[in-house]
């Protein structure tokens, strides 16, 4: 009897404790005008000069200002901290006149010395920059001409420079704060932007408050003042928890909603799904042209004809992603719509091409063979971006053609190593970037992502020349040739243009994204008071 009572007693205690906690939990409330923004990556470092994650730019694009801004509507560069600029005839000297009267959040004046300080910092070997350094291309040095004029000197002409300068990775940080905080600067970042980084607790949250002195916003901002009272960022690394967090009010804006959840949220009256197309290199399977049987262009073309991309888009991506036809996403500068004419889904054409090469199912097992070899391909996948799901669908589509696809999922560093060694037939990848020079990272014979293993001197020449030309029309013409060559040679199986699927509460107003598609212009974002 006594033990029974004891058990009841313990249970009663536990219940009391639980109730106590419930009452404590009820205490937290949210300040009015506060926006909660859900980020999706486990935050690695967030110093834009040091780190490479695209996630860091979501809050920090509004903490820092850049010298120029890219207007996504016109694809033109507009003034930011630089009022005007000029490029020398040889494309190796960029002169910037800086806006006067700009101060950093800590009161430090912004001037030509500050610009030089920032570029010196980024290019210093001690900083071990993972991205910003390489965005500067063949950078040589910065010269201070006078208080409000700087000259950036390059070792070679480099057309993507303005595009690089428009991104937060080359944003202007306060020299005073950088020197004061040293290794701790990541936690105490200071820029000139519309928001001040108030607090950052790594892994937990990051808090932005409006900068009351801000009055030098670029023309792409609609408002001169921040519309939100504060913006709190939290990190939702588990994709399955993102839409519940939105629905329970833990977040007002949530990035990278899984496509299945997006469909469900769309039907709710409290939320909308904001689909932001990301420029750059579409999600595509790179075909290793040095490894048989993919060394034969007809086999590669057969794969393209044999792929029902529409089915992939509707099954895996719930029709929320644009179908990709070529290597560049459709909203990237220089995209050539001519790629849409290549390789429409046509199983018969695919079969005919394979038969022409001599592949035939001689033993009747459903898999084509030639000289005793089966037509089996190996795909190496990374676990993100629905790559495994896409590969699964391709496996069944290609099986109908008698092609066996074996895939394995590996980590990113391992995939890079496999790509180096060349022991694969296909690897899917996508990369965002607003300048078409991104093609040089993939289709130049010396490129780090030359996963098609292509060695085409003519294409190398086009890519190199286009990276040096400052005339936009000439560049675009060269990139057209590259895109057509990539499709002629069937170097890739394009799948979809990447989209940033945001779940957004209906109380949120004016959420717009920059030219990269990832980074919101937070100054304009407002929130209506809770209707509940």
């Amino acid at each position, binding site marked *: 009897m006594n033990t029974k009572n004891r058990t009841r007693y*313990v249970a009663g205690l536990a219940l009391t404790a639980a109730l106590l906690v419930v009452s404590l*939990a009820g205490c*937290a409330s949210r300040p009015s005008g506060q926006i909660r923004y859900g980020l999706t990556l486990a935050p690695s470092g967030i110093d834009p000069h040091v780190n490479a994650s695209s996630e860091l730019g979501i809050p920090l694009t509004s903490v820092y200002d850049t010298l120029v801004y890219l207007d996504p509507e016109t694809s033109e560069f507009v003034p930011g901290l630089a009022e005007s600029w000029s490029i020398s005839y040889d494309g190796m000297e960029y002169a910037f006149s800086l806006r006067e009267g700009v101060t950093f959040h800590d009161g430090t004046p912004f001037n030509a010395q500050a610009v030089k300080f920032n570029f010196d910092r980024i290019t210093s070997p001690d900083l071990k920059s993972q991205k910003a350094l390489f965005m500067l291309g063949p950078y040589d040095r910065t010269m201070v001409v006078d208080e409000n004029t700087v000259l950036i000197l390059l070792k070679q002409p480099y057309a993507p420079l303005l595009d690089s300068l428009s991104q937060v990775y080359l944003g202007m940080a306060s020299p005073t704060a950088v020197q004061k905080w040293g290794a701790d600067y990541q936690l105490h970042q200071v820029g000139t932007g519309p928001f001040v980084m108030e607090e950052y607790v790594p892994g937990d949250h990051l808090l932005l408050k409006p900068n009351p002195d801000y009055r030098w916003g670029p023309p792409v901002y609609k408002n001169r003042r921040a519309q939100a009272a504060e913006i709190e960022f939290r990190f939702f690394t588990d994709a399955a928890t993102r839409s519940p967090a939105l629905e329970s009010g833990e977040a007002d804006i949530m990035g990278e909603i899984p496509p299945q959840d997006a469909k469900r949220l769309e039907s709710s009256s409290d939320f909308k799904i904001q689909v932001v197309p990301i420029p750059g290199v579409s999600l595509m399977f790179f075909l290793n042209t040095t490894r048989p049987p993919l060394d034969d262009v007809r086999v590669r073309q057969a794969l393209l004809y044999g792929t029902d991309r529409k089915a992939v888009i509707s099954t895996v991506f719930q029709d929320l992603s644009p179908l990709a036809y070529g290597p560049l996403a459709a909203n990237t500068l220089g995209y050539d719509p001519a790629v849409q004419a290549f390789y429409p889904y046509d199983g018969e054409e695919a079969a005919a091409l394979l038969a022409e090469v001599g592949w035939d199912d001689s033993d009747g097992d459903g898999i084509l063979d030639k000289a005793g070899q089966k037509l089996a391909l190996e795909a190496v996948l990374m676990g993100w971006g629905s790559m495994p799901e896409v590969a699964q669908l391709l496996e069944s589509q290609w099986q109908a053609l008698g092609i066996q696809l074996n895939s394995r999922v590996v980590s990113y*560093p391992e995939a890079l*190593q496999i790509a180096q060694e060349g022991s694969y037939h296909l690897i899917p990848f996508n990369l965002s970037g607003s300048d078409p020079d991104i093609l040089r990272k993939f289709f130049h014979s010396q490129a780090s992502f030359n996963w098609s293993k292509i060695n085409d001197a003519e294409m190398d020449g086009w890519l190199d020349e286009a990276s040096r030309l400052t005339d936009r029309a000439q560049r675009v013409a060269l990139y057209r040739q590259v895109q057509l060559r990539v499709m002629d040679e069937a170097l890739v199986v394009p799948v979809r243009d990447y989209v940033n699927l945001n779940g957004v509460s209906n109380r949120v107003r004016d959420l717009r994204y920059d030219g990269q598609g990832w980074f919101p212009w937070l100054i304009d974002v407002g929130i209506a008071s809770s209707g509940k």
Partner: protein
Amino acid sequence: MAATYLFRRAVGAVFVLWLAATLAFLALKLTPGDPARALLAASGATSDEIAVRRAQLGLDDPLPVQYGRYLVELVRVDLGESWLHGRPVGQMIVEQLPSTVALAIAATAVAVVLGLLLGLPAALRQGTWVDTLTTSISVVCLSTPTYWSGLLAILVFSLYLPLFPSAGQGSPGHLVLPAGVLGFAMSGAIARVVRAQVVEVLRANYVVAARAKGLTPRRVLFVHVLRNALGPALAVTALQFGFMLSGAVVTESVFARSGLGKLVVQAIVWRDLPVVRGVMLVAALAFVLTSLAADLARGWLDPRLREGLQ
């Protein structure tokens, strides 16, 4: 006596730490993938630039040299700088410790209470429906993956009944769901051990003797049975506590919490050796300390073990 015992334990602890650090080093070195390439490839760095960075990180040196440097830094308690984050590792761990320890303690409390609530009635009513029921529940606890129970808990207690926040940390309320889910999963093992031990002790002659002496059932249970039966349960709990310090990554992700688990998983993916080493050390240290504490507590519970120590 106690001094030699502590000395033996200390030597054992140093050995465990060395072993953990060496395993971490070997595991990362044997996994394919170049950290420098992983960090820089997407930024458009050329192969030459990647090679420069690799040399800068010391990844070009022969493996024994790298291992030697790694151990020297370890002895000097210089945890180094994260290759991915570009920040001091020691500082990163210190930042993550409070939320990790809070979750581990709260989850352990839940696990112990739930483990006793499930294990004791099963043992005391062995073979009855009570036993069947509680044993079944403990199997459910053991076999439910936390990513699933976590999502379920969010749906029920955060979405349908908005009682607790589903994400983040800061208030005690934020701890309820993650600690509940993690404690629920951990309680299964504790319940099984408690049940098995109590059943065994109940059969012991001294319990029969205690009953025969006419002691109250309560006194028999708490003084004679539990005291002897709880030792192994304590050891299991200590192991689980140690595990939770670096292995609660699923729970941390589901409830959008920070923590060492998330930190180390990211570091492994990026081959960020300094961070992996740092977290391994903290975890190994936690295991050493909690098992020492558990052994001391067992000695206090069970005088026979105390004799054995001396």
